[in-house]
């Protein structure tokens, strides 16, 4: 179980994340929702160990990030929001780099890397440097790199932006099966439709604080708009209808 307790991040006087606590159980896909600037990415960066919390703790099955960061990070796979990659490398070289940095033996990399490239539809581009890849292709490389070492927890930060329909369907199926094998997935996104289709539970963040937690299965059984309505209510979102009208007025008068 991923156990996030009273996680807090301060940047001087700014409180970016304020005592956020939630859990992700084995076999669960948890959607992490929040408007821009609510502290989603900061939380994700602290969960994956890229950012040190000001206070609070994160642990996987009792293995605390603060006490044993190395053992903790070994159990995580991470797909960042922006596809930041070493684009002068080929996909094969990048996956081999990541696998070796994670201490995987060469024989396993020789077996798994080509196989993953085939399955992620990157085989034909294996000799091209990633500078020539589309955003969708780069995301597929990142997902392959995140899964390569068979992690216990997969952290996905907006993984569907830039993916084509086929790759999105593959991602969804993969996430479902990965969770069914007893792994944990933390899925940070803006998209309610994806959360409703993929996640079993949603955690909503607003202004750095935990605003709501909701089981998706309950939602699916009821009103399909209710997650969105819940989000609008707990994050104090304004009514966007008049703003949309104003935008159209501006461009039509131009």
């Amino acid at each position, binding site marked *: 179980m991923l156990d996030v307790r009273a996680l807090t991040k301060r940047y001087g006087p700014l409180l970016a994340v304020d005592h956020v606590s939630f859990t992700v159980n084995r076999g669960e896909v948890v959607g992490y929702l929040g408007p821009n600037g609510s502290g989603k990415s900061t939380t994700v960066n602290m969960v*994956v*160990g*890229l950012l040190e919390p000001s206070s609070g703790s994160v642990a996987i099955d009792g293995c605390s990030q603060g006490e044993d*960061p*190395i053992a903790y*990070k070994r159990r*995580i796979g*991470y797909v*960042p929001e*922006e596809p*930041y*990659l*070493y*684009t*002068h*490398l*080929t996909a*094969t*070289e990048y996956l*081999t*780099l*990541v*696998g*070796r*940095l*994670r*201490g*995987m*033996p*060469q024989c396993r990399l*020789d077996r798994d890397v080509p196989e993953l490239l085939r399955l992620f539809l990157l085989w034909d*581009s*294996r*000799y*091209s*440097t990633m*500078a*020539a890849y589309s955003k969708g292709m780069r995301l597929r490389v990142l997902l392959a*790199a995140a899964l390569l070492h068979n992690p216990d927890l997969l952290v996905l930060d907006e993984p569907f932006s830039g993916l084509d329909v086929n790759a999105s369907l593959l991602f969804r199926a993969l996430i479902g099966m990965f969770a069914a094998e007893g792994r944990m997935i933390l899925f940070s996104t803006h998209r309610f439709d994806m959360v409703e289709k993929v996640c079993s539970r949603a955690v909503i963040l607003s202004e750095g604080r935990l605003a709501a937690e909701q089981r998706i299965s309950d939602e699916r059984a009821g009103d399909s708009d209710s997650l969105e309505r819940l989000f609008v209510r707990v994050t104090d979102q304004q009514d966007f209808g008049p703003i949309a009208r104003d935008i159209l007025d501006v461009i039509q008068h131009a």
Partner: protein
Amino acid sequence: MIEKVLERPSGLLTRHFFHALFDFGVFSQEGADAFVRVIIGLVSLIISLGLLLVYLYGHKYAALSAALTGAPYAAALLADTTLAIALPMWIVALVTVLVSHSLVPDETDFRVLLPLPIGRRLVFGTKLLALAFFAGLFTVTSHLAITPLVLRISAGRWAMDPPLVGVIAFWIAGSSASMFALFAVVAANGLLHACLPRARVHAATGAMRGMLLGALVLALPLVLALPTQSVALAHGSRLLLLAPPAWFMGVERLLLGHRDAYFIELARLASIGVIAAAAIAFGSYVSLYRRFDRVMLHAFGVSARRVRRRSAMNNPARAAVRDFTAATLRRSALHQGVVIGLASAGLALALNSLLRNGLLAWLAGFEVPRRHILDSITWMPIPLIVILGIAARASCAVPIEPKANWVFRMTEDDASRVDHLHAAERLVTLFAAFVPVALTLPIQWIVAGPRAIVASAMTAVFGLLWAEVLLRGWRRIPFTCSYMPGKHSVAQSTLVGLTVFLIVGSIGSAMEMAALRGTSAWPALAIPAVLSTLVVVLRRRRRVAWRDTPLAFDDELPSDVQVFRLSQ
């Protein structure tokens, strides 16, 4: 009016491309700001050097004015005018090579700009215009810096032309020379883009940039030696027909009305050179313009053979960083530029020491004092060790895709930290110790016979020691830490560098000399033994420190604020 022009698409694009010429894509915002400070520092340095030249040449021309005849002055004027033309030419060529990654519109321009409602012609035109502004900036700055020197050498008792006319002729000839340098570099790049398949262009332009950078650095001693060619120029040397700065000196002389056959021939070569370089540059631009979409939509590739090559290694973390380092050095033009640019400076200094002490004459069978030959071969390894080591360290410090370093951040751990840093150790050691040995051993063998092995052992140990100095406090996986240039002032760094170089050079050279000339064997054995022990101790201490200290991924400004205690 100017604001209106700048706000037009052409003005905006020109500004965008102009700024892109200063952007190497490796700096954070703080790093980019620091880089601008470095550029300003360099421009100030160029102007200061110009003024320093005036001071140095003041004495020379005072003596020439006092001479009994005008012949020495006339000969010196030819050579010094050639130098005055060559220096701006060299600077413009150097900066054009440094920004050659942005000389022609690239794939990003293609994908970002062409979907916008602007034409291909505008993209190419504004790119050229930005390049013209960029080259113009350095041409004008360097000519301004040299103008006081030209004024000084054009005045005097034996001067044949009014100094002001001389300055105008210098500006016309010098600007033409700088334009020739610009066109030549653009033409070479344009030809590669136009002729090679897309998959090969990246590697080819990177390699050519490295070669040009190396050639320019190696040419600097030749440029600085131009004033010694006064007699050759005065006698119409045919050899100097091969030196482009001399062509433009011919143009300057013709502009001043000196219609000597030699000057006419030099000016003819200058005209042919400028026209040919400009024609090739524009031709390749037009060719690329016509098939831009086809060229850009063809993906980069790497050799399948190279991808398949995998070494079985017991230590995966070490192999990961080693292969990452090798791939980056193979493919990143910026890192190749840093290594080759600095390494060429070391090579130029080493060659200079050989030529100055008459090694070539000695090899050709002429009588040269043996002490001079020994001096040159004992000094030669020092600039190689010092500068090649610095080149390797500097290239490791420049990041590639700084935001992608999260993958290294996530996998950092105490146990494998030394393995992660091993690639930096390997690279610096290779450049500081093994390359100097490989380059100097054959020459030392020719001169000193088997004793050269002892000298090479000394070179190797000295290189290893220098590598330890360079790696002291090093905490970066190569190319993964952000970089902020300009943390120290250019003048301060230059002064410290020169002092270190002279001290290290003197000690190292003396030790090598002791190994080569000593009659007893003990200095040849004892000195390397002591130094080796020192290397082993330092290496152990460094590795212990590496294990205990977290890696650095963000460069920082020095935190120790220097306070002027003016009130005390």
